[in-house]
């Protein structure tokens, strides 16, 4: 599944969109790019991605987030901790 385009994550909408992918039985590759994750919303989107990763039925193998504006907080949330 590839999400592209100039959609910015605003007011949790993008977060909910990503979260909705959690546990998808055939989702093995998730590619979100082109400023979908903005610096302002990095925390929201990273939290949503983390929920996808934590889903017990997750089969996700390839997580591709190029050309975004992930910052330390966003990456920190995605990797190890909440803020």
């Amino acid at each position, binding site marked *: 599944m590839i999400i592209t385009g100039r959609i910015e994550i605003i007011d949790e909408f993008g977060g909910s969109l990503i979260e909705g992918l959690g546990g998808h039985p055939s989702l093995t590759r998730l*590619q979100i790019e082109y400023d979908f994750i903005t*610096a302002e919303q990095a925390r929201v989107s*990273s939290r949503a*991605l*983390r929920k996808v*990763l*934590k889903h017990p039925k*997750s*089969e*996700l*193998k*390839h*997580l*591709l*987030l*190029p*050309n*975004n*504006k*992930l*910052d*330390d907080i966003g*990456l*920190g*949330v*995605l*990797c*190890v*901790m909440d803020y």
Partner: protein
Amino acid sequence: MCDGLLGNSTISSLCLDNNRNITSTGCHALSAVIRDPNCNLKKISLNWTGLTDERSNILGAALSGSSVKVLHLSHNESISRRGWHTLLNHLARTSIISLNLRSNKIDNGGLAALANIGTLKTLILSRNESITPEGWRHSSTRYKELDSG
């Protein structure tokens, strides 16, 4: 139970190309993931991420001894020649088989250090203009020595 990428054992490739707002703090977070015993990351792509000597050293130390096989680090022009020496010495303690190091500041010393990564099968080194013809000649000799055992 995983907590984000930390503890996750299904993700095998992670691409963060062209995310230029990640500093040493973010690199420490990613390092924690790489060091985790459950980590199954085989491919990490960090092209165009504005890595510096400090950030690359943090990641290099984590990669040392990891199971990562493919690493993309092209267009990280803020890593100095000395920074590359340090990073490549870390990578000599990995089992990396593919490296993309295009458009960086790797010099003859860095090229020589690459010979110590014994598992390497694919190497992209184009547009590293600090490598001189003498560096290539020396490296070629070194690889022939390695090839002959």
